[in-house]
């Protein structure tokens, strides 16, 4: 029988793979940025499911992976912003 955290964990792996594939294959920069975010979402989902591992003994989910995911999301947002800014500069340089 599949427990919930395994389903979430496997979904995370699936998202990671989908994102990775698109990052490597897509030509458009915007699509690649989105794909990397999908990839990141997969990793974060894995972390969240790790927090629920062994929930029966502990009563509450492990807070450490949650803290890590929050940090990871902040990093991902900044990286996306930088990628978008670079993409805009690149487009402006094409127009000149």
């Amino acid at each position, binding site marked *: 029988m599949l427990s919930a955290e395994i389903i979430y964990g496997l979904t995370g792996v699936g998202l990671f793979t989908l994102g990775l594939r698109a990052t490597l294959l897509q030509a458009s920069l915007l699509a690649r940025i989105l794909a990397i975010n999908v990839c990141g979402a997969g990793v974060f989902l894995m972390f969240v499911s790790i927090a629920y591992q062994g929930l029966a003994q502990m009563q509450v989910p492990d807070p450490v992976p949650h803290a890590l995911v929050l940090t*990871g999301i902040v990093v991902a947002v900044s990286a996306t912003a930088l990628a978008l800014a*670079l993409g805009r500069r690149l487009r402006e340089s094409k127009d000149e």
Partner: protein
Amino acid sequence: MNNLLALPVVLPLLGSLLALVWPRRADWAGLGASVAAFVAAGHIGAEVMRNATLELAVGGWAPGLGIALRADGLSASLLLMSTLVALAAGLYATTYFAEAQKRADFWPLWLLMITALHALLLSGDLFNIYVTLELLGLAAVALAALGGSRAALQAAVRYLTVGLLGSLAFLTGVGLIYAGYGTLDMVMLAGRVDAEPATWVALALMTAGLLIKSALFPMHFWLPSAHANAPAPVSAALSALVVKAAFYLVLRLWLDVFDVALSQASAGLLGLLGASAVIWGSWQAYRAERLKLLAAYSTVAQIGYLFLFIPVLLATEPGEARDLLFGALVLFALTHGFSKSAFFLGAGVILHRAGHDRIAELGGTSRALPVTTFVLALAGIALIGLPPSGTFLAKWQLMTSAIAAGQWLWIPVIAIGTLLAGAYVFRVLGHAFGPGEGVGPSLAWARAELPALLLALVATAVLGLGAAQVWTMVVPGSNAEGVSL
């Protein structure tokens, strides 16, 4: 408790913020922070030589819940190199970027990159390392795009996407490690790690991410364009420091944390990739038409040598022989850091004064820019591995240990790589000493030539002749009498 360890992280960060809010004084904030970080790194180096390992539990929270900063011989020596290269390249940048606006853009990012690098070197916690790796990557990408040309922007975008994939792979590995062992502190992990499939998957993911970031062949494809199109001081730091940070992490994970879970075959694979990098990088450097591209490909090759050390290290029994080889590895990394940054700074002077860096048209450079030509020659000596540079001692020790471990395959690789390095360095010098017009020397640029000269001298003379100090620092209690010229 040792609050000294926080200084190399806090000081550049403070400088970065000052330079950001006070752009008219950016130069002073930047140089002041660089000097202060260098002094702090010197103190840490001296402490490490006395006490072997320093540790700081940040905020008084014990490792496990809190985050530890640690310094041992390896991190302290890389820290010292990083602060010195950053100081020299920063000094150079004050001349390189003629407009005040450019310098005001440069300093905050530059100091942020140094902050992230130092935090990475001192961090004792895997997740903290992920954060510093991302910070380092983001700051490096922004700096690489600073030139603003279309080629630089394209290279920066590629650098960013590849780097992000690398750090996501690393992060996934970190998650698996936490799921398996319930801690991310490297010292605590080292005691708990078992050789089991989950550990192998986690280590493989983390290593793959780091190999992308350290540009090991065949994941080097993003490096030449990113390093060659960045402004010269930035190229110097990217080649000398940033790729080495990822290599440092591979070394830390493979030797200190996961050594029980490793097989000789996986180390052999790293060695094979390293060997391919040595041959391919040196060959591409030999064929490069532009000086900065040559330097970038030379970095691909030199990173390859660093990875050659790993299989030999793991095959050598712990003890004096392994300590000698480990010291040689650190010496190689340090020498490459100084020589490659000097080479890039020299190339930047030529690019600025002559308006191009096409190797075939360098004729007359030796008369027009004697100091810069001397810098290229000195740095070249260290890149080839001629005595008295540190590379010579390091390669010698690597070959001796490879023979002792029965790994003969690496010997011809090192020989071919060294010959090709000789060929590409002398190709540059041959053209530089050839006939041609060339622009005259300029007093303003002398201020930029001196930091480059300092770095080249450290690579060729100081590290070679003072190599025993490196061993004393890296392997406490050892004596370096086994190696001598």
